[in-house]
């Protein structure tokens, strides 16, 4: 067979490299305004007044937001927070799901039972609906640690699904001959999991990890559309009146008024959404490329 080139993996790594470059080194690039200064009103020439948001022009390559801040700089600086949220959620999810899935590998007993119910309980409603319902409970809205709680909750909602996949794979493995051989020669259960099960499940965990990262990126966007953010804070603005402010500069905040912006300033939601598409695409191609890479001996 001809040499198989793994285009998905190459493409995914290039995309991830570009994203990582802008995330890490972006704030030091010359065209990025690190302080995010903005003017809401400018006077380009006598007798002429312009109000933010400014459309794309020489000064603002892809336009500005409502406070007159450069959108390009906002997106570059916001990338760090956005990716931090996405990866925190997925990492927490897998840290809980992997041990849980491996503990339920016998497909019966307490852990397997927990995984099945957890999976079914949360997979009967759309994830957006469940998370929206839980995240807007006042007990979280007024909580000072809301930020950490919301990351944890988004992670937990889908732990059932992830650990169910892992558990099913572990169960299939447990029927194989080399596992029985391991048991026969007296390998201890913990050693068994580390050296027999884990290396075999690891490739698919890595693949699913990236696919999940893509899903979380989309979920954060969907939540932002309906005005729920991970990093938000309740601030009193007037007598008895409070307002929710997004405390970070992640991409989600720019999408939130998409319904209105379609008519007045399409560039504000368009570019952050494009970046979410790009990151979801990166994660998905990386996942698919890695799957091909791990299965290369089977083709």
């Amino acid at each position: 067979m001809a040499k198989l080139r793994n285009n998905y993996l190459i493409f995914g790594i290039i995309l991830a490299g570009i994203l990582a470059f802008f995330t890490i080194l972006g704030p030091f690039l010359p065209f990025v305004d690190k302080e995010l200064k903005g003017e809401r009103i400018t006077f380009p020439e006598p007798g002429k007044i312009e109000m933010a948001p400014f459309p794309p022009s020489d000064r603002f390559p892809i336009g500005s937001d409502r406070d007159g801040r450069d959108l390009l700089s906002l997106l570059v600086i916001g990338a760090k927070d956005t990716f931090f949220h996405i990866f925190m959620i997925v990492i927490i999810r897998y840290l809980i799901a992997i041990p849980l899935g491996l503990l339920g590998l016998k497909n019966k007993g307490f852990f397997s039972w927990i995984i099945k119910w957890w999976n079914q309980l949360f997979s009967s409603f759309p994830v957006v609906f469940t998370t929206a319902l839980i995240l807007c409970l006042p007990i979280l809205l007024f909580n000072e640690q809301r930020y950490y709680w919301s990351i944890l909750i988004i992670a937990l909602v889908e732990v059932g699904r992830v650990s169910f996949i892992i558990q099913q794979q572990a169960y299939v493995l447990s029927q194989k001959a080399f596992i029985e051989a391991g048991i026969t020669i007296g390998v201890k259960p913990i050693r068994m999991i580390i050296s027999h099960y884990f290396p075999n499940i690891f490739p698919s965990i890595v693949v699913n990890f990236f696919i999940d990262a893509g899903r979380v990126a989309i979920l954060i966007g969907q939540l932002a559309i309906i005005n729920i953010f991970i990093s938000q804070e309740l601030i009193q603005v007037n007598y008895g009146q409070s307002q929710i402010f997004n405390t970070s500069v992640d991409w989600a905040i720019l999408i939130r008024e998409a319904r209105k912006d379609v008519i007045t300033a399409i560039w504000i939601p368009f570019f952050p959404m494009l970046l979410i598409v790009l990151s979801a695409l990166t994660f998905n191609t990386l996942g698919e490329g890695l799957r091909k890479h791990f299965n290369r001996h089977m083709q």
Partner: protein
Amino acid sequence: MSVARTFFKNVVLYVLIILALILVVLFPRNPSMAVSGKAMTVEMGYNFSWKEYKNNIFQYFRSVWMEKSLGDTRYERVTVEDEIKRFFPNSLKLIIPAFFLSLCLGIWKGVFDYKNKLKRRNIFGNGLTWLLQSIPDFFIVVCLQWLVIFIFPSLRLFSQLNWYGFIVPALLVSVYPMMYLARITSAALSDEEGQYYIQVAKAKGIPMKDIINRHILRNGLKKILPHMTSLMVHTLSSLLIVEYLIGYEGMAYRLFTALDFNLSFNMGSLNGFEPGVIIGLGLCFLLMVIMAQVTGFIIKRSLRIP
């Protein structure tokens, strides 16, 4: 497992899900207000009390029992049932075409992807599936909206007044679930590879097209049909976003009104939350999921898939 046992297990599951939904929705929501200092500065806070929680649940069940209704809405003399009667049919017009469209086209696309796995056309196969799965529904909706408003203003694609008003939203709703099913189908078909029955069929000289359609797909359906419920959940999840963004008056739209998210709120404005409506609409969602499960069961029975 016998049909009766599966049925019983599912009933228990759905009862538990409904209970969980009710418990989350009826969680006490009233912020506590305290006034401090000479200026009477209002400080909002929140203290959880079991008593209030118990009271909420108790009262809700009692009112359901007494009035035989799921509750009141923000409008006077309009019950939850009236609202559901008004909004649910509009959503059904989107869900049913979208669901069956994504079911048929999704499986077709999966078969197409599988057939062209090793050919150059794979770009349109797997490549397109990957691309469309990475594009969230809100991005497609916003771009299409902008196009319709600024480039083709004479098109009335999103108006609910026309008879064809449901077509474009239904198409938008079906994109993501369709690609989801396409991936599952093509994976299920790949799993069958190397089985003896395929080699026998090939040896008999049956064209590959017939082998795929008659044999591999039929066996693959065994793995595809259990994903029916998640197909519906994905459809509902796109429905939420599409209806909200284009302002389609369906149940998802009503749900957001009932959730009453606002970026700013006054002292008592958390009261806009309508627990009855959310529970009612949640039940409608669940009904759709059950319907999808039944559809899967019917397909399985009518094709005599073991």
